[in-house]
């Protein structure tokens, strides 16, 4: 009996991590972007770009790794567009984010139909799992928990790197200044523009990886609009994580767990209130922004265009 429960727990943990990944990638990218002062609602669109370009790239070349590279390359113009609109043209950051999401949804759907006709659910070469030595052999929980594909480990590594960079490097200091008091950065000889552009591009690359995870790492196919709100959930993760790296990772894992429950509970014979479980992250984030889960401390210069 205990063995059974442990195995289930392992399975649950493994699913949670897997399902949290796209959100986590998006959230990590958005975290850096918002810390630098740019609210990036286009995470959803950039994720979808990555999912699509990665899938098409992998299909065309037969190499999932090349697909990843193509995913990142494809998102660069989108991220640069967002950066140009938000930082250089000082356009309303919310409107541009939504505009890009609409454009990408339309663009990827259109392109997919044109390239592959009505053959939905085409199998594409995907990324295999990667097992760290020894850990995967742990009894019962090993296979489920540690047989994730490499992108999972990359994400966790990235989270650690981001936290360290923000705290201990000059770049991290500049990012913090760009989002808190951009004048200080400008008058110290730094470039607010360059930092914000870089942050948005970084968010784009991370989102693309998250999207590629969906199509290449997880499901090994592309469906229209497959991100289905994961990009917005990434935003939610940052809000719930109160703009700190560690907390954001936990928030995304929590959301992943909520999603995993949707599938796990019916398997256990428990009727799952699917809608409630799906709603849960949004409700939690709403409570957070309502100030009911402790004080929120967003970067003060968030969404404010810097006009020297």
């Amino acid at each position, binding site marked *: 009996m205990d063995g059974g429960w442990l195995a289930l727990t392992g399975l649950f943990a493994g699913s949670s991590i897997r399902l949290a990944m796209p959100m986590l990638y998006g959230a990590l990218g958005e975290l850096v972007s918002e810390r630098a002062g740019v609210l990036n609602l286009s995470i959803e669109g950039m994720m979808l770009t990555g999912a699509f370009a990665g899938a098409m790239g992998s299909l065309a070349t037969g190499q999932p790794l090349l697909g990843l590279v193509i995913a990142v390359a494809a998102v660069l113009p989108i991220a640069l567009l967002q950066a140009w609109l938000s930082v250089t043209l000082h356009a309303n950051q919310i409107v541009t984010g939504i505009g890009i999401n609409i454009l990408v949804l339309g663009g990827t759907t259109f392109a997919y139909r044109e390239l592959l006709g009505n053959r939905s659910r085409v199998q594409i070469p995907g990324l295999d799992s990667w097992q760290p030595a020894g850990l995967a052999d742990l009894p019962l929980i090993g296979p489920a928990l540690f047989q994730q594909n490499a992108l999972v480990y990359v994400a966790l590594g990235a989270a650690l790197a981001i936290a360290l960079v923000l705290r*201990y*490097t*000059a770049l991290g*200091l*500049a990012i*913090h*200044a760009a989002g*808190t*008091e951009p*004048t*200080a*950065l*400008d*008058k*110290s*000889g*730094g*470039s607010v523009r360059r930092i914000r552009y870089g942050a948005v591009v970084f968010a784009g690359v991370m989102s693309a990886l998250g999207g590629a995870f969906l199509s290449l790492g997880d499901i090994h196919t592309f469906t229209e609009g497959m991100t289905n709100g994961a990009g917005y959930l990434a935003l939610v993760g940052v809000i719930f994580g109160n703009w700190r790296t560690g907390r954001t990772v936990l928030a995304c894992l929590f959301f992943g767990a909520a999603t995993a429950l949707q599938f796990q509970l019916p398997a256990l014979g428990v009727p799952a209130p699917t809608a409630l479980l799906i709603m849960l992250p949004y409700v939690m984030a709403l409570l957070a922004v309502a100030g009911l889960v402790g004080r929120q401390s967003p970067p003060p210069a968030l969404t404010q265009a810097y006009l*020297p």
Partner: protein
Amino acid sequence: MPEAGEALLEIEHVGKRFAALAALDDVSLSVAAGEIHGLLGENGAGKSTLCNIVFGVHQADAGAMRLGGLPYLPTGPADALRCGVAMVHQHFSLVPDLSVVDNLLLGQARGLLRRRAFAAKVVRLSEEFGLAVRPEARVHDLSVGERQRVEIVKCLMRRPRLLVLDEPTAVLLPAEIDGLLQVCDRVAASGCGIVLVTHKLAEIRRTAHRVTVLRFGRVVAQSSAPSVEIDRLVRAMVDRDISAAVRPTPVPHDAISATSHSPNALAAQASEVVLRVTRLGSRDADGVRRLDGVDFQVRRGEIVGIAGVEGNGQSELVAVLSGMSESDHGGFEVGGETMTNRPPKVLTAAGVGVVPEDRHREGCVPAMSLAHNLALGRLASYRKRFGLVDRAALMADARRRMQEFDIRAGHAESPFASLSGGNQQKAVLARELTLPGLRLLVAAQPTRGLDVGAVEAIYTHIRAAARAGVAVLLSSSEFDELLAVADRLLVMYRGRVMGECTAGTADRARIGAWMAGHAA
């Protein structure tokens, strides 16, 4: 590095326009290595613009600059810093939630931050120049004076050739100013050139080697012996009638007639108290105490002036009296009714009119029309059926005000933002003075940035209001204007009233002592 005495910075015929406004016109001056050069002028004279050009924030439209003999055309602060020019800004550019060390590292460090080693370097440098700073403290915990020291250290760390200080004395006490000037002496002695920008000549007369006076964007006087020629320089700065040429006429102050012993003042002694402030206290958003037990009264028909170095609670006092800020102890009454922490609507209904320090922030809605701005605060009185607004009545009232107060605009529907600064201020004043049942007028810095004609008009209206029985509370950093208009003066220091005197018996030395915090 040029020899001490050689020209370090040369500014030749520099001009700068912002849209139609000529902020700078044919400005020339030079600063030598090791020299302290004072740049003087009133608010709006162009000093900040010139500094921003030197630091690369703006680019000049005309003329040229040379640094160390070579052409100098900075494209931005980073460029200026690379050339060895550093600037201590008026509005501090530090990141509040970071420590002093982090703020100093910003823009200077590369790669991994070595905080401890840097902190040691900071301490060494600060001792070299006599600037006490606490490396580990967070900037939002520091006092204004401490923050300024951090800014200066930040500049000195780069070992600049030229240091520009923009209005550094504006928020310092006389004692702190002495400390600052000593720092300047030491920095200059090390071979650095200094440009010291201020509108208070008296404070720097003993330190500056040379002085340039700006007025409406032009150079109106220069001197190599400022302590000797101080009178000429004061007149050049303050004389509102002088255009480009320097005319040695006595201080005109035409805008304010010298009726300091007005019959009103004497009669007011006997009249009722309109505003009674009792032990008023308040804190700012960071929890720092800004008002610390303020006590005073204003009577009907009396004009009371609040003087003091900016930053000692004057703004906070006006904010509390206008209902925009909360007080945490004590209170105030208007006409016998307690008004502490009541919302602005109640205060307006009780007859309190306010001309705020920054009219664009809370005195008007610049994008709306002049007529709407004139009716701001009493729009509900124009309500017709179904919640509609009686436009005809609103426009008619607006046109009447425009005539009564000589507000020059295209027509009543012109956007408020299209009016000149003087006319905007006249409009705000007009609105407050025509408040039905006006009992108290609170005006903060009412003539800041205005030209002669507008200043004259403002004070005419204020005096007329006082004659009509309105109690007037006037907060201003223009001490001479206060002396000429007010019946009584209060001096504020660190959130309380240090001393009080009638304008006629004002003793500058005593008032100066109060401003510095010495109880007489």
